C-alpha cells in the first residue's frame, strides 16, 4: 500500500513522539502577521529565549492596514502601535519583514506563494486559520494560535496530533461561469462546516488537475471553513511552472533536484485514505451563502431551504440564521438587494480573480448600481502593481468601483473598511459569520468574484451567467 502526501510530509518533519502521544513536528516555514504575534514575541522576550531559525520565519502586515491611505503613522493609533511592534520584533529577532514602505506587503497567505517561499513538501504554519491556502502547493499548512506561534519562534516546532486524510475528488468539467469558489462552497455545503474536523483534505480529480495555482489556493484557503485543519493538492507541473524563477524558489542549478524531491512526496497512486468522497463537477452551479456559516448556501437559482428540511437538532440554528439575515424560508436568493460589494481577500484577491471580472465588465459601459458601494482590494501590493500595469484600475474605476490599497480590508473588521448597520454585502471573502464584516448586525453573502461584480452592477443578487450574457447596451 502506498502512502499519501500528508503521511510522507508529516513523517519527514517529525522530530520525535512526545510523552503525550502527540508528535513534535518541525515547521519548515512560519508566516507571521501583526495580530497574532505580539504576545508571542513578548513571551519570548520575557523568558529570555532566542529564535533559533529566524530565516525560516517571515512577516507582513495585513489585517489592520488601512486601504485608503497607508501613510505612516496609520490613522488608527492602535493599528500603528501593532505595526510598530511587528517592525521592532522582526528587526530584533532577525526576521524578514515584507513592509509596505518597500512595496512588499500583502495578505500573509498571498506573500508566501508570490515570493516562492511556499513550496511542495513543506510544513507551514501561521497564526491564522486560512494558512491552509499554502496547501495548494502540496504543503501541509496549519493555522495556529498565539501560544503555538511562540513555540515555533522558540523551537521551530509544534506539538501536533496526526490527522486522518479524506480525499475529495471532483471529476468531470465545471460548467461555464462556475469557479473555484463555487467548488469549495459546494464541498462545504455537502460535507458540512464541521465535516472536516479531525481530517486533512486532499483535493484531487480532473477539476483540480486542470486548475491554476490561484484556483487551487482559493479552494485550499477555505478548508478551515469545512472544519479541516489543512487541505492540499498534490504538486504537479502547474505547481513547478508557477514556482520557477520566484525570489525564494530553488535556483536554476538546484531545480532538477528540487523537482525530484517534490515528486517524491506526492501521494502514491495506490495510497490509502481514511475516507474518499467524489463529486461530479457538472452538478455545481454558482453558489451564494444565505446564512451565518459558509455551509448555509444555495445554488443561485435555488430557493432558501425550509427549517423543517433539517434534522431536529439543527433547526434552532437555521431559524437563528434566517432571523439574523432577515430572510424567509423558501424565498429565492436571486433578487436579494445588496448595499455593498467587496472584491478581495486571501480567498479571491489574486490577479486571476480580477482578470476574470475585468473580462466580464470591460468595454460594456456597465456601472455599479447607484445605491451600492463597491470596493476592489488587491490582496497584495504586487497584485496591485500588476493590475495597474494591465489597466484594470481604470476599468474598475470607470465602472464605479473604488480601487484600493492592498490588505485584508472588508474581509474582517480590524481596519476602517466596515459594513454599517444592517447592510448586506456581496463578498468574495470566506466568512459570513455574524459581525464578521464590522457591523455586529451586518449581513454577508459569500460568492465568487464574478457573482459579486454582477451583484454590484445589478444592485441585487443575480445569476452572473445570465447577467453578463445579456448583449451590450441591453439596459442591464
Amino acid at each position, binding site marked *: 500500500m502506498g502512502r499519501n502526501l500528508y503521511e510522507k510530509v508529516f513523517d*519527514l*518533519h*517529525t*522530530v*520525535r513522539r*512526545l*510523552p*503525550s*502521544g502527540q508528535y*513534535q513536528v*518541525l515547521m*519548515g516555514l512560519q508566516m507571521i502577521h501583526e*495580530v*497574532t504575534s*505580539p*504576545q508571542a514575541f*513578548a513571551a519570548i522576550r520575557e523568558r529570555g529565549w532566542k529564535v*533559533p531559525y529566524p530565516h525560516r520565519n517571515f512577516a507582513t502586515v495585513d*489585517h489592520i492596514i488601512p486601504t485608503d491611505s497607508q501613510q505612516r503613522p496609520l490613522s488608527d493609533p*492602535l493599528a500603528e502601535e501593532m505595526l510598530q511592534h511587528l517592525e521592532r520584533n522582526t528587526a530584533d529577532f532577525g526576521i524578514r519583514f515584507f513592509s509596505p514602505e518597500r512595496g512588499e506587503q500583502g495578505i500573509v497567505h498571498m506573500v508566501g506563494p508570490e515570493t516562492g517561499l511556499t513550496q511542495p513538501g513543506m510544513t507551514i504554519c501561521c*497564526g*491564522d*486559520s486560512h*494558512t491552509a491556502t499554502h496547501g495548494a502547493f502540496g504543503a501541509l499548512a496549519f*493555522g*495556529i*494560535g*498565539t*501560544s*503555538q506561534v*511562540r*513555540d515555533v519562534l*522558540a*523551537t521551530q516546532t*509544534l506539538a501536533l496530533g496526526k490527522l486522518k486524510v479524506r480525499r475529495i475528488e471532483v471529476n468531470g468539467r465545471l460548467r461555464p461561469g462556475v469557479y473555484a469558489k463555487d467548488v469549495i462552497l459546494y464541498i462545504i455545503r455537502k460535507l458540512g*462546516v*464541521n465535516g472536516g*474536523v479531525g481530517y486533512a483534505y486532499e483535493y484531487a480529480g480532473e477539476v483540480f488537475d486542470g486548475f491554476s495555482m490561484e484556483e487551487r489556493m482559493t479552494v485550499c484557503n477555505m478548508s*478551515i471553513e469545512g*472544519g479541516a485543519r489543512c487541505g492540499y493538492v498534490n504538486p504537479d507541473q502547474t505547481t513547478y511552472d508557477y514556482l520557477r524563477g520566484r525570489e525564494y524558489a*530553488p535556483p536554476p542549478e*538546484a531545480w532538477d*533536484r*528540487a523537482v525530484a*524531491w517534490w515528486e517524491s512526496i506526492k501521494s502514491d497512486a495506490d495510497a490509502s485514505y481514511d475516507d474518499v468522497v467524489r463529486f461530479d463537477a457538472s452538478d455545481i452551479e454558482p453558489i451564494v451563502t444565505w446564512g451565518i*456559516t459558509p455551509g448555509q448556501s444555495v445554488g443561485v437559482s435555488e430557493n432558501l431551504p425550509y427549517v423543517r428540511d433539517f434534522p431536529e*437538532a*439543527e433547526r*434552532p*440554528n437555521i431559524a437563528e440564521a434566517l432571523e439574523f439575515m432577515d430572510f424567509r424560508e423558501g424565498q429565492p436568493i436571486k433578487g436579494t438587494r445588496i448595499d455593498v460589494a467587496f472584491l478581495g481577500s486571501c480567498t479571491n484577491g489574486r490577479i486571476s480573480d480580477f482578470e476574470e471580472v475585468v473580462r466580464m465588465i470591460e468595454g460594456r459601459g456597465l456601472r455599479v448600481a447607484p445605491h451600492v458601494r463597491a470596493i476592489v482590494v488587491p490582496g497584495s501590493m504586487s497584485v496591485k502593481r500588476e493590475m495597474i500595469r494591465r489597466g484594470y484600475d481604470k476599468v474598475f474605476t470607470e465602472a464605479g468601483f473604488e480601487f484600493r490599497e492592498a490588505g485584508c480590508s472588508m474581509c*474582517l*473588521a*480590524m481596519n476602517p473598511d466596515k459594513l454599517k448597520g444592517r447592510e448586506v454585502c456581496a463578498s468574495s471573502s470566506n*466568512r459570513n459569520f*455574524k*459581525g*464578521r464584516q*464590522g457591523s*455586529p*448586525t451586518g449581513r454577508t453573502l459569500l460568492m465568487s468574484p464574478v457573482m459579486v461584480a454582477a451583484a454590484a452592477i445589478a444592485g441585487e443578487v443575480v445569476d452572473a451567467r445570465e447577467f453578463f450574457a445579456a448583449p451590450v447596451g441591453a439596459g442591464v
Partner: protein
Amino acid sequence: MDPRRIRITGTGIAVRGNDIDTDRIIPARYLRCVTFDGLGEHAFEDDRAQLKAKGQVHPFDDPRFAGAEVLFVNKNFGCGSSREHAPQSIMRWGRGIKAIVGESFSEIFFGNCVALGIPAPTASEADMAQMMSAVEANSAAPVTVDLETLTVTVGEHSWPVKMAEGPRRQFLEGKWDSTAELMEAMDQVAATAARLPYMNGWK
C-alpha cells in the same frame, strides 16, 4: 500555581448554540491590541448587545452566573479564526472560566485551550442537554470537571465525558505548557532540519 489540571470545581454557565465562531466570542475590533489584558469584558459582546436590544439576557450578562468557572457549550464551538484571543477572553471573563465542556470543539480552538491550560472535554448531545439544563435550573449547583475519572458533575448528577488521551495526560501531569518540552529536543530538531533538502539550500 500548580500546573496540573485534575479536578476543576466551581459553578457553571451554559451558552447554547452550535457553530459559535470566534468572531462571536471576541469581535475582531478587540484584536487591535498587543496584549491580551482586558479582553475578558468583551467576551460575546455583540451577541450580548443583540439579545439586550431584544429585551433578552445573554448568560454572560445574567447576574446568576456572574461567578461561573465552568462553561457548557454545544457543537463545533470556537470554529472560525485561529485567534487565541477567543479562549483568552473567556478565561479572563468574570472570575475566569477554567474549563469548557461541549459537544465538540473546533480543533484550533481546542489546541489553544490546551496551550492555555483550559481542559475542554466533550459529551454526547443528550448528556450535554441534561448538563445545560441542570446548570440553568440551579446556577449555584457545584460543578466538578474530573479529568481522572472523565466525569462532569453538576449538583447531584454525573455524566461521562471524553478527552483524547494525549491532552488529558498533559493536563493531569501539568505538561500543557508545551514550549519547555519542545525545547528539550533542539538537537533532534537540528537533525530533522538537516535531512530536509529545502532547509539546506537544496544541496
